[in-house]
C-alpha cells in the first residue's frame, strides 16, 4: 500500500501475483529481451485492477526491483534492473520517459520530488513532468549523496574533476 505526501491512498500493488492466464497484461517492455516483471495494480479512484509487464534494462543485469511513490498520488515509479518506468495507475499509461542505467531512485517527501540518479547525472520528477536534468555530472557514478535544506550534496568523481558538489533541489543548478 502506498501513501503519498498528502496522506491519500490512491493505489496498491502486488509484485509477481498469481495469474490464471485469463488476465489482460499490458506490456511496457519496449521489445527488450529478458525476464519480465509482472505487477498487479489497483487504483482506488477508478476501482480498477490491472496487470502490467516490465522488461529489465539492457546493460545492467540485476534482479533489483522497487516500486516507489511519486509526488503524484496516481503515478508510480517502477525500478527494475537499472531501468525506471513512470506509470499512471489511473489511466494505465506510461509517461514518455526512458531513463536507463539508473543507479538509485528516491522519493523526497519533504520537497515532494522524485530524484532519479543514473551513473552520469540526476533528474527530477515533480509529479507531472521531468522538471530538470543535470546532463553529464559524474564521470561514472557517485559514492554518496544526502538531501539537506533544499540541497542535494553529492560525493563522487565529477566530470570536472571535483569530488563534491551541491545541487539546488528546485532547479537542479550547481551551487558553488
Amino acid at each position, binding site marked *: 500500500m502506498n501513501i503519498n505526501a498528502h496522506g491519500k491512498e490512491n493505489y496498491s500493488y502486488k509484485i509477481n501475483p498469481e495469474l490464471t492466464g485469463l488476465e489482460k497484461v499490458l506490456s511496457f517492455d519496449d521489445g527488450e529481451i529478458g525476464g519480465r516483471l509482472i505487477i498487479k495494480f489497483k487504483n482506488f479512484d477508478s476501482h480498477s485492477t490491472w496487470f502490467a509487464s516490465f522488461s529489465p534494462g*539492457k*546493460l*545492467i*543485469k*540485476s534482479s533489483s526491483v522497487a516500486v516507489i511513490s511519486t509526488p503524484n498520488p496516481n503515478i508510480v515509479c517502477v525500478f527494475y534492473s*537499472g531501468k525506471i518506468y513512470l506509470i499512471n495507475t489511473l489511466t494505465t499509461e506510461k509517461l514518455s520517459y526512458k531513463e*536507463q*542505467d539508473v543507479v538509485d531512485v528516491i522519493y523526497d517527501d519533504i520537497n515532494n520530488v522524485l530524484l532519479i540518479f543514473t*551513473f*552520469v547525472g540526476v533528474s527530477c520528477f515533480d509529479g507531472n513532468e521531468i522538471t530538470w536534468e543535470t546532463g553529464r555530472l559524474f*564521470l*561514472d*557514478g557517485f559514492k554518496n549523496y544526502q538531501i539537506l535544506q533544499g540541497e542535494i550534496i553529492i560525493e563522487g*568523481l565529477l566530470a*570536472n*574533476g*571535483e*569530488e563534491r558538489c551541491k545541487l539546488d533541489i528546485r532547479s537542479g543548478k550547481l551551487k558553488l
Partner: protein
Amino acid sequence: MSLLDRLKQELASIADDNRAAVEYFEELQQYANNKGGVVNKVGGFAAGLLAGILENNAKVYDPASTEAERSLAFGLLALDVGTRGGGAVGRKTVLQVGEKAGVKYINSARVLLRSAEESSVLHNFPEQITKKVLNEGNLQIINDFWKTSRNHLTNTSHNYSLRGTINGVDGIFEVFTRPSISGKVELIMHKFFRRN
C-alpha cells in the same frame, strides 16, 4: 651529460613510475583488507603482492638504491618470477593493460574497485576494447583536471574515447588516464561505456 648520467636518469625515471603504481596498489590492498570478507582479503593479498613486485622492481632500477638494497630486491624479484612461473603473465595482464610508443598503461586502484563494485558491463568491458580505445580512440588532453596532487603523477587527464556498441546499444567507450611526470606510464583512472 655523460652517457652514464643519462642512463642513471633513465633508470631513476623507471623507478619513479614503478613507485607511483606501488602507491596505488598499497592503497587498494588497504581498502580491500578494511572491507573484510574472503574475496576482499584475497584481493588485498593479490594487490599487496603486486605492490611488492613493483617495489622490488623499482629498487633494482633505482641508481640511488644501495648495493645491498639492489641485491635484495633483485633476489626477491628473481624469486617471484622463478616461483610463480605462468602466474606472472596473469598478474601482468591485471596490472598492465597495454603499451604504446613506450608508454605503459596501468589500471589504477580506482578502476579496479569500480569494476568490482559495479558488476554491469558499463564498468567491465573487456581489456581488448580498452586497448582499442587507447590505440584508436580520440584523445582530449585536459590540464589541471585532477584537484588532488599525487606523487609521481601529473594533474593532467588524457581522455580517450571511441564510439561503439554493447548488446545493441550505441554509445562511447571512455578510458581516461593520468600520466606520470616522466610520461612513461599512464594510470587508467576511469573506464566506462556511456550510452548515447
